[in-house]
């Protein structure tokens, strides 16, 4: 809780800080998500109705009210990646992780999502693991990256 207060205190009590606060709270959470309590805290901090905070959280696709894995794998699903085989990448990831899109592995390590264009089309197909961009994906490369994250980088 102390951490959350610290995060809040970094931001002025101004409505336009809402998204930034939500990003920070979500990033600091162990399961890449926001809780109802978080929303209430933020509403309190910014003196906004809870419904306003909820409204924003549910509008933006990067915020989640469902617990997610420690690492977010976001496979780019834009046309170029699509043409270069994003679908197969997704199938391969599902196979390697044993989960479907939007699901989290049992050990709580990974959540698999699709993303809009990540803007690195030259190395399609691409995925982003947390903030790391990984391009030119092949089944082998997927395995290496996933192993690396499994071993704690």
């Amino acid at each position: 809780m102390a951490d959350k207060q610290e995060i809040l205190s970094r931001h002025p009590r101004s409505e336009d800080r809402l998204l930034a606060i939500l990003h920070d709270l979500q990033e600091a959470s162990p399961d890449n998500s926001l809780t109802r309590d978080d929303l209430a805290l933020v509403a309190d901090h910014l003196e906004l109705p809870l419904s306003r905070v909820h409204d924003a959280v549910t509008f933006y696709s990067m915020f989640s009210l469902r617990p997610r894995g420690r690492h977010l794998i976001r496979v780019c699903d834009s046309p170029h990646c699509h043409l270069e085989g994003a679908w197969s990448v997704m199938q391969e990831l599902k196979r390697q992780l044993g989960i479907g899109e939007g699901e989290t592995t049992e050990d709580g390590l990974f959540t698999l999502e699709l993303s809009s264009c990540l803007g690195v089309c030259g190395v399609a197909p691409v995925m982003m693991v947390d903030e790391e961009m990984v391009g030119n994906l092949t089944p082998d490369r997927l395995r290496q990256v996933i192993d690396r994250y499994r071993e704690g980088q």
Partner: protein
Amino acid sequence: MRRLDVLVCSGTACVSSGSTEVKESLAQALADSDLRSEVRILETGCMGPCELGPVMMIYPEGTFYVKVSPDDVQEIVEEHFLKGRPVRRLLWEGVAPALKEVPFFARQHKLVLANCGIINPERIEEYIARGGYEALARAVSEMSPEQVISEVSASGLRGRGGAGFPAGKKWELMRNANGSPKYIVCNADEGDPGAFMDRAVLEGDPHAVIEGMAVAAYAVGAQRGFVYVRAEYPLAISRLEEAVGQARRMGLLGDSILETDFSFDIELRMGAGAFVCGEETALIASIEGKRGEPRPRPPFPTESGLWGCPTMINNVETLACVRHVVVGGADKFASVGTETSKGTKVFALAGQIRNTGLVEVPMGISLRELVMEVGGGVPEGRNLKAVQIGGPSGGCLPEKLLDVPVDYESLGEHGAIMGSGGVIVLDDTACMVNVAKFFLEFTADESCGKCVPCRVGTSTMLDILSRIVAGQGTEADVPRLKELAESIKMGSLCGLGQTAPNPVLSTLRYFPEEYEAHIADRACPAGVCPDLVHYLVLVDQCRACDRCRQVCPTGAAQGAPGTPPYHIEDELCIRCGACVEACPFDAIIVKPGRKG
């Protein structure tokens, strides 16, 4: 004594293909060979040809190495740095030692990307050494705000975000707007799939954007600016944050800039994954911390924007042009381009093309030059079918229209748009119905839901297209699609809805026969749509090598090793294409139409 500079591209694309490892092994190799005082490693922003990454450039002679791996580093050091012999196998197509001789670079005209791949974006000194902040200095010390605006107007610069509104006109509206304070916003919510020029500029030359904003702020009388960046661009965000800090420390942002009474500062705001926030009124709502939903215009943001105050929104690329207008003068800027489209435009080339990546060309260049010369054309053995330009709001132009000049008006006339500059080249393996469906999936998904025609209409169109590609289309579908397209265009508040039907309309206009084949013949001519093709083993070519059976994930490829021919069990086949790729004898083909 230093004799060589090695510029290692550290744009996102090169980093993702391993440039950091290359840089580290290079540093190690230089230390091992005792060359650290002679060869300097510099990290730069995007150099352009992302597919060939990691790339590096070696100065002074300008040797350009592509697809460098850590294993190549030792050879580069020994052969090139010690013996002065470039490593030929790492050169672009193994030939050109100097960049000027590569058509990809020779045909380009770099203004916006002039510093990308040349300077270290994390050092303001390098930006200044290349003439950076001269425009700001000149504007605040020698020019009145009105003079700056008239220069921008005279240059003919138009908004690079898509719509092409004249920048000078917008600045003038803003200057004359009543109300205070005034805000300026840099729209870096680059969401168009396939477009990544804004990311490259922010990562490779962030100060150009900051300077453009500062000049704009001076001209229109704003003291506070925001950069709204999408959260998918962490590297761009960190480079920009760093750059803003440096500019503040040097007195180029903050109070009394360059010891004048002009004060201006910039804050960053991060999006959270909503495409519609690239639309200016939605963007404003998002900066204010609200749902990013568009609202009707007028009032335009220059009258009532952030917190009801006059707000001017310019795109990244537009702002990066500003310094060239101020320093080089309007005439020089306007000497490039066409009558109505001045200057250069950055395009992101992607798809079935030899040179993918980021290129900057004069406006008015033909699509053919852009794709065939700069882009190197489609890979050998393929045929160009169409060029998709302008992203999900754009259209597909067929091969026969390749001579259309790339400017705002010409593209619009033919059902495409300049958009943000994404270009996807499609060859004969692309199904146009599927391409249209793909883009519509995107817009249907990203529709914020406020306007019913956009929310319901795009989904309905998508349902129809899904039926068509599944082989359940009817003759009534095409007229229905056209009718829906018109309603969505007319009944939507913002650009997302107004342009969402474009990919469908342009493919209907130029490739009606493909829709016809899907609907009437239940066949996908390009062999893409799984429900409208079947896999066939060519009896004469099959050698019963068993490869197909080994790779088939569903057991559809069947046969006994050594006893040709094999066959594909249609009921089991999921059309993944693994067998086609695995067959060493090209004995498996995808045939349009259903089996039997």
